[in-house]
């Protein structure tokens, strides 16, 4: 692939990604405009606060609510472009600051769940693909059950068994890695089960390929074939699902953090939804859309690294 086509490809993708982000910003702006009632009331503390007209007018001026909608829309996009997500109605502090304060625990949870889920899925799928029907059936049956578990129930079951009955892990909060184990499993098990199903399907496809026969003929052990030759192919569908994984982790964080009483973006989002703190809700939603878009851009760029055949093709 010549440098020029490569540059053009990256350019188109980036433009597409920016388009999606612009659309997402427009959707959130529309959501803000659609919210019933006067935003100024939400800022001063709900319809019961009975503010004076002067206060309302002041708030409207401060938040630019007295301008026509296209001016507000333009100002909104400009602010977003500079990384300003607005000010929380409830906390009266910048949304970016609130996100910054809560991002740490959620990233720790999401990363550990992603690692456990992905590694577990790859190991299980590599080990069980194409085996005797009994082994394969047991593995895919377990995956089907795990993938069907609602995470909020899985968490309750894990708490009942490992926290309250066996006493191995703390139930709520908990310092360090011990507090992270059960929330991680709650997120990782259903996710890993879905991924394992996808990886197994692709591993089984690859095991039928002629080059696997060649590798075996060269005297490689079965484990060697799977790890050195099949694994790389199995990574392609896994990479494709990265955006899905990121989204699932973010959505799952809302439930897991609530269930385990953990700090984080999920809890922040839930409390913002309940109190109609729209700038925080929309800031978080935009953040997740941005993560999804960036992950997919990175995935696109990674394909040629995994599969050398894609380096020559456009």
């Amino acid at each position, binding site marked *: 692939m010549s440098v020029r086509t490569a540059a053009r490809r990256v350019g188109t993708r980036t433009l597409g990604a920016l388009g999606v982000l612009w659309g997402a910003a427009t959707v959130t702006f529309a959501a803000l405009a659609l919210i019933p009632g006067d935003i100024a009331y939400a800022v001063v503390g709900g319809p019961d606060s009975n503010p004076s007209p002067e206060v309302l007018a002041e708030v409207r001026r401060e938040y630019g609510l007295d301008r026509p909608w296209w001016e507000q829309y333009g100002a909104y996009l400009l602010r977003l472009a500079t990384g300003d997500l607005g000010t929380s109605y409830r906390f009266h502090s910048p949304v970016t600051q609130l996100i910054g304060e809560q991002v740490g625990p959620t990233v720790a949870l999401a990363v550990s769940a992603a690692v456990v889920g992905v590694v577990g899925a790859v190991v299980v799928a590599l080990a069980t693909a194409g085996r005797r029907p009994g082994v394969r059936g047991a593995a895919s049956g377990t995956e089907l059950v795990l993938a069907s578990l609602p995470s*909020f129930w899985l968490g309750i*079951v894990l708490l009942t068994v490992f926290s309250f009955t066996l006493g191995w892990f703390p*139930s709520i909060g908990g310092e360090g890695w011990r507090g992270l184990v059960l929330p991680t499993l709650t997120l990782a098990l259903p996710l890993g089960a879905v991924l394992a199903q996808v990886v197994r399907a692709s591993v089984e496809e690859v095991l039928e390929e002629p080059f696997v026969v060649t590798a075996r003929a060269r005297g490689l052990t079965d484990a060697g074939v799977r790890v050195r030759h099949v694994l790389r192919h199995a990574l392609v569908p896994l990479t494709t699902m990265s*955006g899905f994984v990121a989204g699932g982790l*973010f959505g799952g964080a809302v439930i897991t953090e609530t269930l385990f009483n953990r700090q984080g973006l999920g809890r922040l989002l839930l409390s913002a939804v309940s109190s109609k703190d729209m700038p925080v809700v929309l800031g978080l939603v935009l953040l997740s859309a941005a993560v999804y878009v960036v992950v997919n851009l990175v995935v696109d760029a990674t394909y040629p690294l995994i599969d050398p055949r894609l380096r020559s093709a456009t």
Partner: protein
Amino acid sequence: MTTSLVAQPSPAAATPPAAAVPATLSPVPVAPSPSRPLRTARRLRVPPSVLLAGATLAVIVVAAAFPDALAPYDPLAVEPTQTLAPPSGAHPLGTDENGRDVLSRIVYGTRSSLLLGFGAIAIGLLAGTVLGLLAGLGARWLDAVLMRTMDVGLAFPELLLALVVIAVAGGGTRNALLAIGIASTPSYARLVRAQTLGVRRAGYVEAARATGLSEAAVVLRHVLPNAVKPVLVLATIGVGTATVAGAALSFLGLGTTPPTPEWGSMLSSARNFIELSWWYGLFPGLAITVLVLSTSVLGRYLQRRAEGGVR
């Protein structure tokens, strides 16, 4: 390139609709007998797991339609002397913090839980089908506008999109149902569009057009049924997923709220009593899991059949 787990329409899926087949070629007649469904199942070689899933779903639907026939108690009847009682002969699945019978609450909760699942899928399917058909059959600019909008929708995780709708419209059963329906619309719209593009150029559609049928009749009688059929199969799985999403919203306190029995909100209350009762947190979640398992087993089977994998 496509990340969809759904297979593209295969020739088997694109068989002409029944209307195009002469009446003399009616399906193989089945001898009427008392156990006709079972015999049909045997003839079609339905695996036992699928039969079990179907039977389970039948029980669940009966529970939703006639909860009083299955529940031993009134789901709202409070018994202050029997709070958090473990499973016993009188209360097979124990009682909750107000002394209400957990089994009865699960049975009565079926209706609210299924209402969320089916209602949301109905909205998602309907909106997705209309948008997908418009995109697949309409002008290129319309297709581009609609599909780029759906791309934006797909950039949000479904639960987050549902939360935005709830933040705007407020919580409660109706809004939760609407929220999940809206959140699931983009993926259905994309599917219906892909199917429509495949069906639009099929020989039988050209033939129908050549017989002088109006464009609307061609779309309604030939394009729509064939484009939607594979999507309907997927919607079987979607019912399970949407029920979980609905239960999740109720669990978060944004869907169906107490005292109305609903599986997710039962789990939300149970969370406060994990230390005192294992049964309260166990059984409502088991009900959700069994429902999801059944819909995925059935849905996957229907999907394989539609693709001609099982015969």
